[in-house]
C-alpha cells in the first residue's frame, strides 16, 4: 500500500524532528538540532532493516520515492517564496560565499582522493 511508505516516511520525520527538538533543549540552543538529518538516518536504518527481515512492497516504496522525486519541485517553490529583494541588497556576498565554497571544495578533491588511495595501499 502506498500509504505505508508515506506513513513510514512521516514516522521518520516526526521522530527525527522530535529528537532534534529534545537535542536542542539539551544543548540549550532553543532550536531544532539536526532533526532532518536524524530523520534521514532513521529512514536509511529502517528501510535497510526491513530489507533483510520483511521486504517493503513495491507500492510502499512508491510512497517514499514519490516524495523523493518531489524534492526539486518543492525546492523550486521554496525559491519562489523567498524574500529575494532583501537578499539582493548585499547580493555580492551570496555570490562570493557560494563561489569560494566551490573553489575550496574542488581544490580538496585530489588531496582526499590521494589520501584515500594511500590508505588502501597500506592495508
Amino acid at each position, binding site marked *: 500500500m502506498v500509504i505505508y511508505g508515506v506513513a513510514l516516511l512521516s514516522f521518520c*520525520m516526526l521522530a527525527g*524532528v522530535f529528537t532534534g527538538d529534545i537535542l536542542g533543549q539539551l*544543548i540549550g*540552543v532553543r*532550536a*531544532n*538540532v*539536526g532533526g*532532518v*538529518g*536524524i*530523520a*534521514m*538516518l532513521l*529512514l*536509511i*536504518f529502517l528501510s*535497510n532493516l526491513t530489507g533483510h527481515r520483511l521486504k517493503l512492497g513495491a507500492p510502499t516504496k512508491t510512497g517514499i*520515492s*514519490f*516524495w*523523493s522525486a*518531489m*524534492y*526539486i*519541485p*518543492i*525546492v*523550486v*517553490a*521554496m*525559491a*519562489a*517564496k*523567498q*524574500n*529575494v529583494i532583501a*537578499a539582493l541588497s*548585499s547580493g*555580492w*556576498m*551570496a*555570490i*562570493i*560565499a*557560494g*563561489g*569560494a*565554497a*566551490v573553489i575550496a*571544495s*574542488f581544490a*580538496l*578533491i*585530489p588531496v*582526499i*582522493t590521494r589520501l*584515500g*588511495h594511500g*590508505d588502501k595501499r597500506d592495508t
Partner: protein
Amino acid sequence: MGTNVILETVSAVLSKNALITAFAFVGVLVWISYFLSDKLTRGHLHGSAIAIAIGLVLAYVGGLVTGGSKGLADFSILAGVGVLGGAMFRDFAIVATAFGVHIDELKRAGVAGAASIIIGVVLSFFVGAIVAVAFGYSDPVIVSTIGAGAATYIVGPVTGTALGATSDIIALSVAAGLTKSVLVMIATPLVAKRIGLDNPYSAMIYGGLMGTTSGVAAGLAATDPRLVPYGAMTATFYTGVGCLLAPSLLFLIVRALL
C-alpha cells in the same frame, strides 16, 4: 457572463485550491525550465538550476509588486506556493531522498567517502562564514546561516529556521547555495580532468565535498553519466550531515569565536 465574472471565478478557484494551484504552477515552471535548458543551453545548465533561478526571479518580482516578504506566495492565488515551499514539505522531501541509500554501499564508499562529507560541510560552512564576516556581519545566527547556505541551499534555510534567522538572511543563504549549485554544474566538466574526476572512487569524494545534489547530479551527468550514482550517493548525505552539524556544533563554534 462578463469577463470580470469569469476572471473572478478563476481567481476564486485558484485561491480556494491553493496547494493544487501550486502543483500546477510549479509543474509549468519546471517544464519551461527544462525546455529552456534543452533548447538554449543544450542541457549544459541543468533544468532544475534554471527552475530555481526563475523561482528566485519570480520571488523578486512578487516582492516588488506586493511589497511582502514571501515572494510569489504574497499573491493570494499563489499562496499555495508558500505551503509547498514551506518547511514542512521541504523537510519531508529531503528525508525521502535518503531512501535507496544502502548501508552496504555506504560501507563500500569507505572512510574517504564519509570523511569527505564531513570535511565538505565544515569547509563550505567556514568559507561561507568567513565571507559573511568579511562583509561586516557579526551576529552568530546570521554568520552561521550564510555559512550553512554555502554548504547547500537546503542546509541554509534549515539552519536559519532552526536558529531563528530572518527571511532576508535565509534568502541570502539560498542565494549562496544556488550560486554554488549552478557553479558546480557548469565547472565540473571543465575541471574534471585536472582534479582526477574519472572514476567511482573520486566521484564519491566529489559528491561528498560538493554536496549540492542537483549540482552534483548535473555536473557528473555532463562529465561521465556512469559516475552519477556514486557522486549522488555521498551528496545525498551531505544535506543530512549539514542539517545535523550546522545548527548545532558548527553554530556553537561560530558563537564561541565571534
